[in-house]
């Protein structure tokens, strides 16, 4: 669990209630969590918060953020996040996006040259590079849940979550996150067909980090994504699956600190 004080507020952004956490102090750093919100209670964010003020929004339908009908894709969410940063009067900040959060960071970066100083993407979704019968991303909704967990995690023990000891509110957030992930990413599956042709607009220095054992989106996919972004650097982390920052936090932090400076 997080040891640092967490300031969580509900902000009214373009008519919807967005849950936004501020944590730590220093230069601002936007954190876009994965679809399960697993970073929120991990020690990783506390470590990053030692040198940055983290800005951590929950996407519509995730956490306690509301989910109006008109939000139907990561493309929509990215405009909302741009509105959020306008509201906070912050720009030219670095971002770390994990998995779905990586996709959101890509969407934002293609829409504004001024918003990000640096992009750090971790096992990101968002772009389809393969053909019509290729699975760029293994299908987390048609595979047996035990198979999905095995593809996602290098060390299955780290995947375990203690649902029995969660409160109703915590469980409702887990359930909302699962539901909203499907709402936005069901079809097209985990990508925006327009995004690939928009990647040329990204100007910020970009580092793409990938778990060497990610079975959901393989390192080969990550490499092909990196190749589509001008000047992007690609790094892998050994003994880690789809969430390398959670399985190997020290290795990840070293990469992150050296990239963010």
């Amino acid at each position, binding site marked *: 669990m997080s040891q640092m004080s967490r300031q969580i507020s509900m902000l009214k952004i373009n008519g919807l209630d967005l849950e936004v956490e501020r944590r730590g102090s220093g230069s601002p750093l936007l954190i876009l969590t994965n679809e399960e919100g697993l970073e929120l209670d991990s020690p990783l964010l506390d470590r990053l918060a030692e040198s940055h003020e983290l800005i951590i929004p929950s996407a519509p339908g995730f956490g306690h953020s509301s989910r109006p*009908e008109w939000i139907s894709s990561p493309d929509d969410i990215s405009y909302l996040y741009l509105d959020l940063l306008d509201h906070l009067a912050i720009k030219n900040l670095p971002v770390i996006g994990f998995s779905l959060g990586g996709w959101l960071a890509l969407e934002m970066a293609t829409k504004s040259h001024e918003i990000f100083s640096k992009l750090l993407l971790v096992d990101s979704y968002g772009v389809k590079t393969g053909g019509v019968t290729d699975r760029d991303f293994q299908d987390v*909704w*048609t*595979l*047996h*849940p035990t198979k*999905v967990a095995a593809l996602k995690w290098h060390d299955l023990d780290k995947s375990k979550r203690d*649902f*029995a000891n*969660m409160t*109703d509110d915590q*469980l*409702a957030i*887990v*359930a*909302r996150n*699962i*539901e*909203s*992930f*499907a*709402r936005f990413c*069901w*079809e097209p599956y985990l990508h925006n067909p327009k995004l690939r042709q928009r990647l040329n607009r990204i100007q910020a220095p970009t580092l793409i980090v990938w778990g060497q054992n990610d079975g959901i989106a393989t390192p080969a996919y990550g490499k092909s994504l990196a190749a589509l972004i001008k000047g992007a650097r690609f790094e892998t982390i050994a003994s880690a699956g789809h969430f390398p920052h959670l399985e190997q936090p020290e290795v990840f932090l070293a990469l992150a600190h050296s990239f963010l400076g």
Partner: protein
Amino acid sequence: MFAWHFTEMPYPYLPPLDSLSTMRVSLPNSHYDPKIGADLYNRYLDEYVIASELGLNMLLNEHHQTATCLDVAAPLSAAIVARQTTKGRICILGNPVANRNDPIRIAEEMAMIDNISRGRLDVGYVRGVPYEIFAANTNPTQTVEKLWEGIDLTVMAWTSQEPFNFEGRFTHRRLVNLWPRPYQTPHPAIWITGSSDLESIKKAAGRGYVFATFLQPYDKVKAMFDAYRSNYHDRGLPGGGGMAYMPLVYTAETEAEAEAGAKELTWYLAAKAEPQYRNPPGYVPVSFNVNALRGTYSGRTDAMRAQSIEFLKEQGVMVYGTPDSVAKQIKRFYDFVGGFDHLLMMQQAGSLDHARTVKSMTLFAKEVYPQIKDLPRSQPLNNKAAAE
């Protein structure tokens, strides 16, 4: 009381079921032999024709990518039955309007069958069971909204006599202009299914639609029917609304024979599906999934799985026995739930063969149906009574 014959048109010639992880969605079609399938299609359609001759109505449905149901296009089977019979009503229960992405095509198909059958068609709509999400690739988080938008659009298409445009959330059409119009006025009776969502039941009742539910225990059915009754409005639709219930039904000359038949019907309840197919994300509300995470909810049909036929009979999920016993069980169910209008009978499932299926259907039609036919139509708890 109206009685309906029903089969899902199963393909039961599979390897031992305990060797399969799923019968739905991803069971490879290498298990399907078209020569056997051709025989099955013709046999099941023959049974619908026999049902018509016996004075029963005909209920059809569709599913996809599953050995439990070869009827993948209920409008096709309903059209065949419409042309091959001259009496008895035909109901598709239902059109998966949330999964088909083309409500206007559904409106056209239904209007065409209504014309061919000279007004014998009832049009059911279903949201679709969870497994269907995958075959149709429908976003599972918005099927209810999509269902209702689709129903509204088909009704507009049937009743509008001028071209109109429609730009909804899920369907956009620049010029809707249905040829043919339905045979019945203002349009065929509409049915809708449900299994717990009382808000949807109230909505259906308020519009004068028939509400149908399947394979549920008495007390749950009563709660749903009470919700329907207390919200019913007569909208002047053909048939006048009402409630429908489907158990598995097997009628035989002896109790022993009935038990044997009933056991074969449980093949349907035993149909397996992997867990990810049973509860796609957002198909049920967050509160259900909180219970799922706690391990106290695993999908809607699981409660009935692996129960004994005696238990299922006690709950009203199965009805089987000699004709007098079957009539008694139906009357008991009728009394317990406060009355209903349509008995939907799954009289064939699994490998129950043609001869035994027809024997059960015939015994029901000749010896049971006369005993329950005159059970009064269900009464709305308020508002004016449903038109007969």
